[in-house]
């Protein structure tokens, strides 16, 4: 159900500044700059824009936080991200193997923090506030990532060198991510769950700290040679 103007107003009053927070591994070039051409970066931005587009059918100026765009110059990264995460309805995680890797520990901390928020906001409920968007499905996945609402776009990402937000991509985001954000918005309103950012902090432990990747599967076919 789309977010109605009264619900939107309630969300603002309840402290929800962002409809969605995008969590993704920041890829760096050799020079140490953000690699904005990397498919993960492009996809993160594509997801942001598709969500904005999808939400804009029901509300004016949807707000989706992406650190690359939404941290004003000079602002400290950690408090800004912490504030944005706490004031978001939903976190979308752009997942590939590197997302769970210790090199990108912040991804695991964001995940753990949002999971904590989810438990506070919907205690005992199965409605989760994290939507993993799978750019790659490098199995085995961390157990916490294997959840009902995962969104698989790995095929879309494999056909071309550069990410392209096709109609299919937008449809997937509209139907699976935007609708989830809308459901969370309604549930928060219904349960009158407001933000409580004064007591919110990042946990000490990444959500993936106990998980070890099995590494890349061998590139060999299971079937014996035929013909």
């Amino acid at each position, binding site marked *: 159900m789309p977010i109605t103007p009264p619900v939107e107003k309630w969300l603002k009053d309840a402290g929800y500044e962002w409809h969605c927070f995008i969590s993704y591994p920041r890829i760096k070039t050799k020079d140490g700059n953000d690699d904005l051409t990397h498919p993960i970066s492009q996809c993160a931005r594509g997801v942001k*824009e598709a969500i904005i587009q999808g939400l804009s059918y029901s509300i004016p100026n949807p707000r989706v936080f992406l650190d690359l765009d939404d941290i004003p110059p000079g602002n400290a990264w950690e408090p800004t991200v912490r504030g944005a995460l706490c004031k978001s309805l939903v976190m979308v995680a752009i997942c590939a193997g590197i997302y769970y890797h210790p090199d990108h520990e912040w991804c695991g901390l964001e995940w753990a923090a949002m999971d904590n928020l989810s438990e506070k906001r919907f205690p005992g409920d199965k409605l989760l506030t994290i939507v993993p968007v799978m750019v*790659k499905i490098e199995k085995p996945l961390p157990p916490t990532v294997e959840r009902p609402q995962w969104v698989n*776009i790995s095929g879309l990402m494999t056909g071309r060198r550069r990410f392209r937000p096709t109609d299919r991509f937008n449809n997937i985001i509209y139907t699976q991510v935007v609708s989830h954000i809308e459901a969370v918005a309604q549930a928060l309103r219904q349960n009158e769950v407001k933000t409580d950012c004064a007591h919110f902090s990042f946990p000490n432990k990444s959500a993936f700290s106990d998980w070890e990747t099995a590494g890349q599967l061998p590139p060999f076919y299971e079937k014996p040679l035929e*013909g």
Partner: protein
Amino acid sequence: MALANYACWLVRRFSAPSQRVLLMDWDLEAPGLQRYFADKAGLPENADRPGIINYFAELNKRLESEPELLNKLASDDGGQALHEALPLDEYLIRDVVPGADLIKAGRLDADYAQLVSAFNWIDFYSKYGNLFNVFRSWLELNYTFCLIDSRTGFNDISGVCTMLLPEKLVTVFTPNRQNVYGVLDLAERAVNYRRASADFRPLSIFPLPSRIDNAELELRKDWREEYQKAFETRLRNIYQLETCDLSDYFNKVQLPHVSYYAYGEEIALLKEKRSDDLSLSGAYEKFFQRLTDRETAWDTSEDAEAGEEKVPMVIPVTAPAAGVESGIYISYAHTDDMALMEDQNGWVSTFHQALSTRLAQLLGRDVEIWRMALIELSGNSALTSALTSKIDQAAVFIPIVSPRYLNSDWCANELKEFVDAKGQDGLTVGNLSRIFKVIKTPVEWQKQPPELLQMIGYQFYEIDSSTGRPREFAHNLGPGSEYKFWNKIDDLAFDIKQLIEKQQTGSQEATAASVPFEKPGVYLADVTSDLAEDRDNIKRELKHYGYKILPDRELPLEVASLEAAVREHLARCALSIHLVGSRYGIIPEGEKRSVVQIQADLATERVSVDPSFARLIWMPPEITPAGDLQERFVESLQNKIGAGAELLHGSLEEFKTRILEKLSRVQPAKLTTRSENVLTRVYFIYDSQDTDAVAPIEEYLFDQGYEIISSLGEGEGAQAAKYHRENLLNCDAVLIYYGNGNQLWLRSRLWDLQKVKGWGRTTPMSATAVYIDQPNNQEKTRFKTREAMVLNGLDRDPAIALQPFVAQIESPTT
């Protein structure tokens, strides 16, 4: 064989010395690629040259004996370390054809078979899997194209060749089920592996049907249908495509069976001096072109040789909507719909599709949209009757303005057809224009057709602050540009929706000047280009909440007209909003202040006549004025902001919140200038010689909702004098037309305005003005008065010249 031909084609096409090709024979069980290049590969120095299997066997040996080597190879500079540890030079047969090097499968001696069977690829991968990436990266640095000859089938080597190494996978098959479904399974497994791997490169499948026998027409047709469908279905699934149409691909891509090449190792591209469509070399060339130039097999080209499409066509995109005065016509120059890349849609096509979808979403039903799809425009051609009827039928006309549009007679004819069909009265619905100007590429304002001049338009570009060049918004120019493109589409669709709904309700409201708004009008001042997006952002939100935003038409660039227009708009608003950035902006001719500052000054002036008028000014948090003028302007705003104004430096979101708070306190009733049932009477005084010349003025004022009382000509005695006096006593406003009358006549009429108090008039007139028109003379040029406002109509459209007069009437306090 295909690989050898491809190498020859590549070196022919990319002949620069830096663009080299590498062929690698990974078909270890049936090596033989070198035989196609026997001239070089057969030379004594190459006969015993080692190949792929020798290289990896040696690498394995070195890694086992030098454990520290693995760390070096795992570093960021692993490629260089690999080159230093085990140079490839010894393995390369240089220039098998000029520009292409070859690595054989191995040294084909007595030990070869033993070496191949003993090498454990699975074990090697489990220990040193990342080395394949290092090896690949090193090759990529040294070669533009690396071609891998791999045996098909499910074995360890084909796993390396199809899953680990390539970006494009050519699956060669002959039309039989074992072959077709065999390569499909292999392709699917390879792509699924890539989807689950840490490798972010694409893996794109290019099917290549081979040995197609032209003699068996029926069989060929049946098999074509089967394998095309099988590939379309499989590719659609593995790449999560909405659709996958390989008709065009398989029309072009198929290798005929040519018996000659079944024998020996001839390379068709070298053997056949001339290629045609039926030759093997011709078929190869078509395939190689696609393989090289396109990212995927299903990509289509906008430049397809579709000669049959070179006729005018009207494309209905969606089903007609019932009961509506029909749809929307998009008028554009064909050049503006040419795709920049061959696999993309043109700008207008994308615009068309996006608008259609968004409107359907906003209205809850489809709206018919037409445009003429022409491959070649013939400027002097008459519009076809089918096209004319669509234009006449359209409720909305969207010209896509660009330099090419202005040069197109065809586009000019379309606009004229629409204007003629609707007539002046029919060009608006209430106060909304049926023409929605879309500016794709900037053009000189004055070069636009007169019908479009006054419209603000939807600007689908921005000026790059670093280069000063315009950058168009498009769906395919990066996320930033695409985001802006969609926002503009949204603005346009929203406004069209309003017009369509207004038309449906049949509420033919009077024009904006005479209609009190349900909500207060808001003057959202024009800004410098760096703040255009922020202005759009605010405009979008205010429109969403139902506020009328002014100016709703292009502001004139000549200072007097500009001031008059701004005053008129301000008079209809309760609040003005000014965004001030680091730039000063355009300075109109004959003026020292920028348009931005003039608007701010006039808003201040407005407060002096209407103390309830509010001003909100926003500056970005950290502003650095560019230049002295802007510095002074910013300083003056910060230090002398004046009554009724607030200056905010916070985020744009905070500013928007403040605007909405401010507007929520404004009473709409304050804007109502008069009761709906009471007419405003304008007494229009002119010389009898000017009866014809004043007609457009009368018409314009009447259209604004005023009752026009015309003066009588001279020489009609006492009755005329009485009529004149009564009109001055009872009218709400007076307009004196200074055309053929002399200055004496004019002064006498102005004097009457003073005398009217003595005749018994107790209320002030809402507006008095002198309208100066042709014939021009020195007296008129120098004419000034403090008794009425002076309107310059000498070279100006009455609608523009009369704006201050109308604004004055509409203002409740002046």
